């Protein structure tokens, strides 16, 4: 009996996939994330929220937001992920050593920026938890919503609705805001101003934990990044 195209394509796929060489060694690193507030093995889903708060969404006169289930954790010391680059050797004593690369965002946030980042992250996640996807979506930076070709609001909201249906509730726990871009992922690609434009001097990363079930490990990343003019904070949902 001749083979269908479907079966033929998948037979070919399987033959190639089976031929993939397994790496000789399992990946390891020596990095430990200290101060991780989530103590239970079953609860660890870490989402990094870099919350860019849209001031136009989060001025005090914006409609009341119900109390957030998530609460920011007290600041705990965390290991800073740094890309290690040895200082360049030089035969000229007067030259300063090349500073090691760092994942810490340069610049200095203004007073109140961190608290605002937590507040926005809490509101954003609360809206999602309540199923108010439209309001949460409205908090996301326009260029991020349109530029990634991921199907727009309908797909985004449908994904959250599916998760809510399968999980029952989208509880969350916010972690301490950080200025370390790679705090929770040392392999996170460096910020790309071409797709994430803004004032990184004021941006914050906030890890959001989703305690789904004991056997999942999930997280989200939101970038809270003021525009370069500083007038507006925008939310980038990176994951």
């Amino acid at each position: 009996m001749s083979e269908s195209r479907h079966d033929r394509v998948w037979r070919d796929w399987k033959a190639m996939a089976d031929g993939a060489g397994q790496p000789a060694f399992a990946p390891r690193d020596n990095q430990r994330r200290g101060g991780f507030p989530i103590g239970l093995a079953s609860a660890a889903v870490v989402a990094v929220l870099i919350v860019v708060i849209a001031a136009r969404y989060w001025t005090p006169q914006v409609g009341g937001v119900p109390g957030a289930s998530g609460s920011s954790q007290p600041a705990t010391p965390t290991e800073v992920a740094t890309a290690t680059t040895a200082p360049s050797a030089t035969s000229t004593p007067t030259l300063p050593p090349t500073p090691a690369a760092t994942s810490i965002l340069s610049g200095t946030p203004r007073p109140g920026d961190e608290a605002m980042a937590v507040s926005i992250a809490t509101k954003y996640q609360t809206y999602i938890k309540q199923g108010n996807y439209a309001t949460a979506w409205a908090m996301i930076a326009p260029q991020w919503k349109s530029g990634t070709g991921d199907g727009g609001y309908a797909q985004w909201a449908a994904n959250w609705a599916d998760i809510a249906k399968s999980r029952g509730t989208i509880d969350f726990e916010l972690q301490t805001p950080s200025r370390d871009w790679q705090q929770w992922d040392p392999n996170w690609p460096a910020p790309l101003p071409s797709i994430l434009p803004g004032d990184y001097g004021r941006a914050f990363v906030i890890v959001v934990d989703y305690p789904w079930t004991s056997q999942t490990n999930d997280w989200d990343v939101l970038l809270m990044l003021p525009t370069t003019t500083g007038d507006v904070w925008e939310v980038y949902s990176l994951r």
Partner: protein
Amino acid sequence: MIELAIRSEPRPSCDSASSSVFRDMELAVVRDADILYERAFADHWRDVFQFLLAWTNDWASAEDLSQEAFLRLWRSRAKIDWGEPIMPWLIVTGRRLANDRYRKIARRLGGLPSPASFDETQQVRWLDVQSALKDLSALERSTVVLVTFQGMSTVEVARLLDTTPGGVRAALSRGREKLGDAR
């Protein structure tokens, strides 16, 4: 469930002998988790890679994401319940990594290299397969792999991919339709 707290100094309320015992117990648990991790890698790498290959339809991305998924398992090894099957954890982690919008864009902009192991014939063959599968969604491709090749039930697959058993069956059917059932 093995719970482990790695401490860099002895517990202050214990005497030095008790502290030493606690520390030895902690180190023993770490060593167990290391062994379990290695075993998980040996047992599951291929299945994880094949799932991610189907999900992304991109060989270099699948290799990259497989390594990343196991790296996350390594980092979480002290918190994992090793008494439960580890494949669901890896599949969900891999899927989330693959769906990471920022990583996707950065990969696309950065340009992952072609698999180093491919010769020209294999490259052409892979491009043919990839082209045939590109019109299927990630769900439609990965359900074939998980159900047909890895023997999971539609219920198990639904849980892993955040959909319903009906959704899994529909994806399988749509995939078959798109590729053409004609003989």
